[in-house]
């Protein structure tokens, strides 16, 4: 299915430097990454490894200090509905109901009321929130809020879904449910997903490819293709073997710098 000729996202030698008073922080240093349509990529690493910075550059929220970030071969100039972001703290519009949050993108594109309603109905069903269509975000649990955030991005026809530790604030049971639901949606819609996490297990459970990043300066340590069959069993020996390998890579920078 995936068109392997042109990658959907290409990151070519991207660095990001932040100036904090007198300090210069190398958040990301010379990153190279190419993502094909339909892939599920996890960016994993300790805090300060630049994984969120890389994600924000892909979203268009930040511009690289040097290097190029391309989507379908064209530079990413700013945020765009084709690249939807799911934030860890949801960033739902608190004054809009579930229905209106999901319809925000379609309405911003200038679609008519009937069309927006049709789209909203479809995605509200997809994430199983039909009963809560008229609730406001503060009335929802964390898991439900994140479902709304996912539906909001999908309703806007995003080709690429960028997720910044989306399940980090949820309890373990809710997290597992949402992981399953996300995989199901991904398999059904053939989306491309870039998912940032610091949990090795989550990355192995979800991804086709796990990109391990290390801090100080933030850089890509390795790019690991996973060919474990799905559904994946976290307790299987194969799963644990991969976990051991990735954990070693994650901590590889400790030799250089005491942690």
């Amino acid at each position, binding site marked *: 299915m995936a068109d392997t000729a042109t990658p959907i996202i290409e990151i070519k030698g991207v660095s990001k430097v932040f100036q904090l008073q007198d300090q210069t922080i190398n958040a990301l240093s010379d990153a190279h990454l190419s993502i094909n349509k339909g892939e599920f990529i996890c960016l994993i690493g300790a805090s300060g490894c630049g994984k969120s910075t890389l994600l924000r550059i892909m979203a268009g929220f930040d511009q690289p200090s040097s290097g190029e970030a391309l989507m379908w071969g064209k530079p990413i100039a700013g945020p765009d509905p084709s690249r939807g972001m799911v934030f860890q703290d949801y960033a739902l519009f608190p004054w809009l109901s579930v229905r209106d949050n999901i319809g925000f*993108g379609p309405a911003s594109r200038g679609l008519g009321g009937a069309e927006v309603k049709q789209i909203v109905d479809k995605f509200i069903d997809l994430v199983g929130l039909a009963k809560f269509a008229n609730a406001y975000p503060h009335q929802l649990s964390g898991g439900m809020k994140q479902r709304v955030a996912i539906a909001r991005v999908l309703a806007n026809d995003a080709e690429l879904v960028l997720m910044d530790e989306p399940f980090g604030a949820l309890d373990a049971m809710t997290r597992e449910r949402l992981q399953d639901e996300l995989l199901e949606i991904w398999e059904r819609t053939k989306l491309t997903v870039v998912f940032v996490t610091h949990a090795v297990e989550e990355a192995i459970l979800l991804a086709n490819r796990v990109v391990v990043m290390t801090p100080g300066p933030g850089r890509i340590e390795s790019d690991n293709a996973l060919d474990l069959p799905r559904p994946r069993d976290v307790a299987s020996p194969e799963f644990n073997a991969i976990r051991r390998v990735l954990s070693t890579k994650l901590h590889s920078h400790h030799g250089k710098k005491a942690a």
Partner: protein
Amino acid sequence: MAIVETASPAAAPAAVAPRSGANSTWKRFKPTVLALIVPLLLLAFWQVATTQQWTRLIPTPYQVAEYMVDFAAGGIYDDAYSATLTTHLLASMSRVYGGFALAALFALPIGVLIGRVPTARMLLDPFLQVMRPIPVTAWLPLSMILFGLGAKSAFALVCLGAFYPILLNTIFGVRSVDPKLFEAASMLGCRGNAQFYKVVLPAAAPSIFTGLRLGLGLAWFVIVVGEMTGVPQGLGAVIMDGRTLSRTELVICGMIVIGLAGYISDRVVVTIGNYLLRWSPNHHG
């Protein structure tokens, strides 16, 4: 190796006994009863103080109550103030709501400008910060020179009183929008000026509402000063007349009416606000 599932102990006996009728009645009326304790104590103290003649200048609660009836409906004293309560109340209300509306008309756009446009902030903020501590009473003489004796001056002073709380809360509201919401809006295709209407204004609505509520409260608060400008009608005018005529019962009646009118006005605003801001977890009070 297996996990043995043990049967859960028998469900604990129902711990919560059905609530007794007396208990739930008390719960329902508790707020009202508690709210009445302090006013009733004060009333009792007033009664004792006046009947014991600790002061001869303040009438008894009964005299004031009797006068209040005459003030509202007439038929007891039939003097110049009998049955004039409605006239004075309406006169004051027109100044309170008119001055408040005028204040909102200026404060909202200026607040949005100062909050969102750095140049406007540098231009206006220092000036307004210096003007703000000047009390409305201090403006009274100047206001009478600028707007003349009478209603226009009263209007201007009430407007001035309501202006700053609306302004400051509007500035605060439009400045403290969660930056994530701008990112969320722009990745969903809402950019530039559209973000002002679809993100900034709704996000600032709770603060703006708080400003409007405080502004209306202050409009009632300064109405007496506003009506020191020589207007013939209004609750403030009644209080000033009562003072000159040494009719303390008139003064107290005016005070009670202002208190009640301000309170009812605030409850109405809060009820409207709670409905409009029902999405906000912080607006259910």
